[in-house]
Structure formats: C-alpha cells, structure tokens
C-alpha cells in the first residue's frame, strides 16, 4: 500500500545542506499499521510529510496504492491519503465551527450530502450533536483531536498518516484517542503510518516498527520484538531503555558516591 524507495529529503544548499532523511526504504502492506519511532530531529516526521505530499522536493520513489506519486498530486490522490497532525490546537482553523471544518473536504471533492456525512463522521469519532457547531476554542484537546480525525476520515481515505497524534494530549486522553484509532482502523480497513517518539504509543497501535535516527532508518522490527526486548541494533536497545522511564531497580547503586 505504501512503498518508499530511497526517499531522501534535504534542506538548504551547498555547505548548509542538511539531509533530514536519507535513503529511507520501507513497505507497508494494505491494512497494516507501521510505526516510525525516533528522537526529535531523527527525520521521522520528514518521511511522513514526504508521504503526505507536503514536501514537494523529496527524492526517490513514493508509491501509494500502486500509484507512483509525482511532484503535484491530483485531487483524487489527495482523497486517498489523509493525515492527523500533532497539535490539535494548530491544525483546526480557529474561526470555523466544527461543522465548517468538516464540510470543506466534502465540498472540495463534491461528495454531496454534507449534512449526513458530517453527522456520521462526528458520531464515528465519539462526538455528539452538541459539538457540531462549536468553535475549536470551545473544545478540549482530546475533542479537538477527535475533530481532526473526523476531518481526515470524512474523505474515506485508504491511508491514514499520524504525526504524533497523542503527544499534545494528557495521558488519560491519549489512551482514548489510541483506542479510537484502533477501532477506526479495524472498521475501515485503514493502512496506517504513524510517527511517534513514544515506544508505548507506537507498540499499542502498530505491528511493525521502524527505528530512525539522524535521518536514517536503522532497524525494522516488530512490536512483539520490542515487548520481549529482542532487538538487534544498539540504538534501538538504548531507545528501549530510555523509554522504560524511572525504574528504581535500574539505578546502579555502586555508581552513587559513598557518603
């Protein structure tokens, strides 16, 4: 469904040229959820944005649902790939009601029957009639992210791209959004490509995981391998340790200076 071959993205020219992603190749089969994990600046979001078509100057091949993506994407291709952004405060237009936000994609693609589609989309993400005519500032962070998910799904895409969809939310809301995404993926047979720095979030949603650092895809592994700790690359092991959080037993007592 998603095939990347030697995708590279560089910013700047000459001596100031920075390679944000270099030679990334991966393949995601239909219905699969693939996670990209790495620290900030590892290039994972760059890869995602290249897949979304937000970076026009990406090099290499990007094939989505059997179609090779060019520099300009047609409206029909846009419909197939949708994205949920990291910051639900920045990704919704501040002066538009939920209803307006959700009606626009229906109008662009001339799907018709906007009223029913908007109502269905809201119901699917667990929002009610009372939220439909509110402005984003009248919604909580979790509700906003639900609106953003509804906006992506109202076009009935085959591929959903997720850019740290939970990192701006607090922990209890994170779980709700993750469960919602799991359910939507099952109901719609979505292929997902998700980016996060949080291994637990990635492992919850994705079966296969790619570990990125400094613009390179270091290792392809699975959620099961991460859970059992059977990863091969040293960087992945390090990432796994740093994600375990504060565990008193891991503190090396011998290393503390004697009083």
């Amino acid at each position, binding site marked *: 469904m998603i095939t990347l071959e030697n995708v590279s993205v560089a910013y700047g020219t000459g001596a100031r040229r920075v390679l944000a992603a270099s030679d990334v190749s991966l393949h995601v089969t239909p219905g699969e959820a693939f996670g990209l994990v790495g620290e900030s600046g590892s290039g994972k979001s760059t890869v995602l944005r290249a897949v979304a078509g937000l970076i026009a100057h990406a090099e290499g091949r990007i094939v989505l649902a059997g179609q090779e993506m060019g520099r300009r994407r047609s409206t029909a291709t846009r419909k197939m790939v949708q994205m949920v952004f990291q910051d639900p405060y920045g990704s919704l237009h501040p002066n538009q009601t939920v209803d307006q936000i959700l009606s626009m994609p229906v109008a662009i*693609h001339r799907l018709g029957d906007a009223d029913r589609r908007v109502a269905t989309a809201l119901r699917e993400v667990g929002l009610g009639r009372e939220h439909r*005519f509110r402005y984003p500032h009248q919604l909580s962070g979790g509700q906003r992210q639900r609106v953003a998910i509804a906006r992506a799904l109202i076009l009935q895409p085959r591929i959903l791209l997720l850019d740290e969809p939970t990192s701006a939310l607090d922990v209890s809301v994170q779980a709700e959004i993750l469960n919602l995404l799991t359910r939507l993926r099952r109901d719609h047979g979505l292929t997902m490509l998700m980016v996060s720095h949080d291994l637990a979030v990635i492992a919850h949603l994705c079966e296969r995981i790619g570990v990125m650092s400094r613009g390179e895809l270091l290792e392809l592994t699975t959620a099961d391998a991460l859970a059992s700790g059977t990863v091969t690359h040293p960087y992945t092991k390090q990432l796994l340790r740093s994600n375990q959080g504060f565990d008193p037993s891991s503190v090396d007592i011998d290393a503390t200076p004697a009083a």
Partner: protein
Amino acid sequence: MSDVTLRADLGHWRGWLLDQAPGSRWQARLGRWYRAWLGFRRNGLAMTGFGVVLLLVGIAIFAPLIADREAATLQVLTQRLEPASWQHWFGTDELGRDIYARVVFGSRITLTIVALVSAIVVPVGLGIGLPAGYFGGMVDAVLMRITDIFLAFPRLVLALAFAAALGPGIENAVIAIALTTWPPYARLARAETLTRRRAEFIEAAELQGASHLRILLTQIVPLCLPSVIIRLTLDMAGIILTAAGLGFLGLGAQPPAPEWGAMVSSGRQVLLDQWWVATIPGMAIFITSVGFNLLGDGLRDVSDSRAG
C-alpha cells in the same frame, strides 16, 4: 406583568446566544458576534465612537427629514453671513445658504467618499497582499515592489496630482484617495498571510485537496479581515481629512455641492468676523474623524481580547 415576561424573553434570547452548544451554523455565528459585542460594550470610549458613527450614518440616511434639501443650495443674497438664529441654526454662508442644511447634506458626500474608498481599498489591498504572502518568491517580490513604489509618494501630493490630472470631482477624488491608501493594506494582508502560511490548518486544507484560491478565500481571508477592518476604521479619519483637503483646494466635490472641506475653504476669508462659516463644517470633520478613531481603537481592543 408584561415587563416580567419581556425580561424573561430577553433572558431566553441571551441564553440562546451564549449557548455553549449551538444547534445551527447561524446560532454559532450570532453567538460569536454577541460575545464580541458584550466585550465591545464595556469599552466606554469605543461606544462613544460607535455612537458618533451611528449618528453620522443616521443623519446621512434621514437628511431630507431633518433638514431642507432646497436650503442647502438655495442662495438668499439678502441674508448673507448671518449668525445663528432660529431660522438658520448654524447661520448662513457668504452666499446666504443655510449652513445647518449644508452640514447635514454634506454628511452624505463624506460617507459616500468613505464607502467608495473602502470598497476599492480593501479588495485591492487583499488582492495584492494575499498572493504576495501566500506564494512568496517572485510573486512576492514583484507585488511588494509595486506596493513600495506607491508608498514612496507623499499621500496628499499624489492624490492632488491624480485629482488635478483626472479633473476635479467626487469620483476622481475617490480614485485619487484610493490609489494612495491601498499600499499599507497590501502590506498588512501580506504580513497576516505570512504568519499563517505555515499553520497546520493550512497544510491540512492542502492535504484535503483544496485549491490555492479556496485556501486563500476560506482559510486566510477570515483571519486577515479583522485587522484590515480595524486598520480601515482607524484610517477613516485620514480619508475624511484627505477628502476635505481635496475639497478645500477645489479638487474634490464641486460647488454648489455641500462638501465639508469646500465649506471650510469658502469660509476662510471671513474667518475672523464670521467664524461660524468655516468652524461649523470644521467641527463636523473633527467630530466624525474622532468618532471613527475611537471606534477603531475599540474594535482593536475587542479583537485583541478575543485572541486569547
């Protein structure tokens, strides 16, 4: 009894407007306006300005009811330069015309100029500034250099040159003022667009397949309009003064049209002995300008507090 039901009724409407979960697009929009109005109402000076502007519009609309249309242009040479009296509330000018009627009907000319200039300046400013900020690169460079050229001329001098070249008259005064007023709007629209260009909701719209035109009109224009409208309200005083200045120099409305600037001009020879001839229309210009300025300040305050 009726007072109680009326109050209950008003409370009902208030609740409907402030509803946190509006039932329709219109209720949401009206509620938003109502909240802005509540904020605006608390600002005393802004309300004063709003009152002045409202009064001016009222006078212009109902001019034939509150003053005699004939008297504005009727020359009674036996009653030249008379001081205020019951017959002529503000006295008469050097041709024996009733100054009160002339000031009242002059408000129509002033408002017409202001409305026409706004109707030209806002679309032109947005039309130049939005693409410049949105597309950047060459488009930005070319459009902004054109704007710079227009900004480089002193405003009144350019307006004078245009009015002199095109010939005196209200239409040409409007064109001359509009030509010199739009560049700051283009810059403002460009700056507002630039701050939003990289916003995620714009990227989301792009991903949905929205065309550039749709993004500009539905996503960016609604965010630029408030600051453009505030700027326009604050510029009103300047526009009115430029119009009056052109009238004063004889390049605006032509006699016998009761244009305020031309009235001040005609009274300047008799300023010491018959002060009211120049002072009354001068006061009208002054009050109108202050009113628009206060209104603009108030609108700015309201839009600032809503940003949080």
